[in-house]
């Protein structure tokens, strides 16, 4: 036993799920100094596909753990080292000098593998390591007539003055079969064509360019300047600091993110704001509540009157209830108002809508709104409830904030944010008195809604909320 040779072995992050490149360490079940046996579970990791437990392939004593829980590690990176042949009583072998972490600090040394520091990401070395080609190529007999190879440089070169023809590297030129066919049809030898595609692949355009050059008087090469590959560093995830929590993007969050990106980057947004004295509206809400005029058990909220105010404005300016049809190059003014209400639910933000809200009476609207909110809170909103919205209200006031710049629900032209109602000093009938004031914000798609239309709609909503009597006079 004592003669057993001790050696330090590293366990590398395996690819546990068919082609994954990284995994996050969730939990370590062992610590340095612990004795481990072959097959013992030492940690749990999570990949894009699954959370799995990793068994260590050695018998020995844990020497070092290279990454704390919560770190995302590339497949193939050593995550733990084990002194093989040691037992728990032994002191860790050669503490600092032979430890891989120390080796990382020695930046001078060219380490082929990406070895990380304990926290965060170390410098990234090149992706795949390829063996060097022999300097003298033993070419297959049948391609012996190919030009003798020089240096191994199959990549397109970023200097236009020195385009590298595929032939120069003495390999079979890279091209897709249809491009090969094209070259054959045009009588172009692919080995003479300058490749501009990724990784030195000859494109269809390259062949056409070569054909054009061949047809013209042999002048300078007319191949377009090859583009240097875009640095891929930008695609790397940001360094994970200690304590960061990484939440996988899926479900409602994913759908929301896609919708918001689609909306924010296709519709040019304009947001306008107005502060409004809603004391009368609040009084009306209170009276409706107390009287039960809208029906027994029907909930009456300020949001109901905001909805009614917006519907009133839409009736006066139907062009706000519209959508931009990019493919048809048309503006679609919707015949019906499907009023969306942004709702925070246990599943995340969703925007169900009240179908044909424009034709509903106030009591009907109150019932619809109550049902919509209940359904959403129970997480039972169906996909159909969320489709076909034409204009939306987001009630940010419930969170105690004054206003925001809402992003349009995709496919709609306007969204109204309803802020918190606060008691503020307000000039009312020539005197500064406490009044209930809120802020409304309206974002609209400037492709189809001009500032004038947007402003009129927002002003209308404000006017109704200031004097809810206008629901009758404008109704």
């Amino acid at each position, binding site marked *: 036993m004592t003669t057993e040779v001790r050696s330090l072995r590293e*366990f590398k*992050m395996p*690819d546990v799920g*068919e082609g994954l490149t990284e995994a996050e360490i969730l939990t370590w079940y062992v610590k340095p100094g612990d004795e481990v046996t072959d097959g013992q579970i030492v940690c749990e990791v999570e990949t894009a596909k699954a959370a799995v*437990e990793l068994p260590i*392939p050695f018998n020995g004593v844990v020497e070092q753990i290279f990454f704390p829980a919560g770190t995302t590690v590339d497949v193939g990176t050593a995550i733990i080292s084990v002194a093989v042949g040691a037992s728990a009583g032994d002191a860790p072998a050669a503490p600092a000098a032979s430890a891989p972490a120390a080796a990382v600090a020695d930046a001078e040394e060219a380490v082929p593998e990406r070895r990380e520091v304990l926290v965060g990401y170390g410098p990234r070395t090149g992706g795949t390591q390829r063996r060097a080609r*022999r300097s003298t190529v033993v*070419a297959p007999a049948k391609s012996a007539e190919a030009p003798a190879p020089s240096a191994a440089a199959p990549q397109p070169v970023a200097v236009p003055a020195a385009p590298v023809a595929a032939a120069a590297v003495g390999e079979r030129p890279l091209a897709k079969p249809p491009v090969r066919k094209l070259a054959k049809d045009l009588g172009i030898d692919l080995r003479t064509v300058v490749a501009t595609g990724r990784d030195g692949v000859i494109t269809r355009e390259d062949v056409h360019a070569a054909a054009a050059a061949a047809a013209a008087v042999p002048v300078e090469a007319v191949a377009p300047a090859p583009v240097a590959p875009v640095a891929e560093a930008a695609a790397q995830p940001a360094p994970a600091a200690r304590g960061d929590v990484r939440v996988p993007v899926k479900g409602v969050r994913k759908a929301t993110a896609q919708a918001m990106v689609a909306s924010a980057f296709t519709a040019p947004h304009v947001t306008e704001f107005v502060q409004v004295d809603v004391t009368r509206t609040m009084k009306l809400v209170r009276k409706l509540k107390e009287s039960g005029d809208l029906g027994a058990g029907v909930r009456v909220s300020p949001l109901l009157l905001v909805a009614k105010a917006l519907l009133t404005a839409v009736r006066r300016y139907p062009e706000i209830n519209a959508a931009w049809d990019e493919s048809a190059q048309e503006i679609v003014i919707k015949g019906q108002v499907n009023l969306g209400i942004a709702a925070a639910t246990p599943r995340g933000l969703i925007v169900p809508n009240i179908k044909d809200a424009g034709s509903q009476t106030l009591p009907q609207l109150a019932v619809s709104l109550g049902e919509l909110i209940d359904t959403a809170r129970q997480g039972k909103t169906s996909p159909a409830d969320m489709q076909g919205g034409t204009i939306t209200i987001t009630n940010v006031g419930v969170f105690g904030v004054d206003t925001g710049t809402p992003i349009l629900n995709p496919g709609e032209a306007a969204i109204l944010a309803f802020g918190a109602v606060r008691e503020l000093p307000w000039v009312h009938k020539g005197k500064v008195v406490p009044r209930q004031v809120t802020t409304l914000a309206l974002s609209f798609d400037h492709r189809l809604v001009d500032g004038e239309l947007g402003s009129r709609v927002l002003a209308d909503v404000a006017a109704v909320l200031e004097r809810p009597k206008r629901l009758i006079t404008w109704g």
Partner: protein
Amino acid sequence: MTVKSTARARKKAAPGVPDNLRIKGTDAPPELVQLLTPEGERVENPEFPLAITADELRSLYRDLVLVRRFDAEATSLQRQGELGLWASLLGQEAAQVGSGRAMRPGDYAFPTYREHGVAWCRDVDPLNLLGMFRGVNHGGWDPNEKNFHLYTIVIGAQTLHATGYAMGITKDGADDAVIAYFGDGASSQGDVSEAFTFASVYNAPVVFFCQNNQWAISEPTTVQTRIPLYRRASGFGFPGVRVDGNDVLACLAVTRWALDHARNGGGPVLIEAFTYRMGAHTTSDDPTRYRLSEETEAWKAKDPITRLKAHLEQEGLADEAFFAGIEAESEELGLRVREGVRSMPDPDPTLIFDHVYAEPHALVEEERAEYEAYAASFEGGENH
């Protein structure tokens, strides 16, 4: 009036169906053939009698334990990066060992990619199976030597291969039979329906052995079928039986009956082994994302090994020394598998050209020469 009389006539006719046309295990209760309860009690079934010796019982127990151990070791090796992928059979040992041991030497099995227990019964070396999942061979056993076809990854495709093979047996006039393994998910594949049709009309000696492990990756059986799967057989005109897939004795008895039925000119049989995939679909899958742990817990109580062990103990057919011996043997197997996999040499890359055609082929030879020259153009050795 006519409708009424027809209905009455049909009603009358039902009990009069001759016994040879009655769908075994379908029209008569109990639906689930079981010979060993989860508590380890032996149950008799007049339709599927099973005379079995203590030696045979102990041998089945050994199979179950070793197969499970091998499977667990493979999962562990995948987690260590030694295998590209592994499809665990955890929970399905009895269905595979029971049916595998029912085969005669001349019978032929067409597996999916999860039939490690059947491979064990057909004497395919576990390391040979792992070579494929490590990517160092392309299915390293000779199917005709083991009468065990190469693993088929394409879902359900092997049911057609099996049917074709079975039709060939009939033409040869042999009395062998074939087993086609597939799962509940594959039952939705067109290939399986086609295989059923051909097997039925050609009266092919093939047993369709469906391990209904309840989950086709993340799809429950309820979205695959509206009737119990074994009843599908009646639509194709051959018997269907549902057997407790966690009961190795029932699987053995029913499969033995089905193979004999097939080899004696009775035509195909569909066996639905009602079981449960205790683990993930493959090592790339995480079942906690789509199924409840309560369900898995409930199936744990039906474990195939526990019930056979309980039976052996209750009947005094095995002692502590026997169980300890099996345990030691399984440790040994684990070690052999671990070390064997880790020390598997990388194959010669030109192996890929070896079995493209049965006979020499000019184009393949040309490509081989081209590849060899290419590989030799690298520094540091011919192929490495």
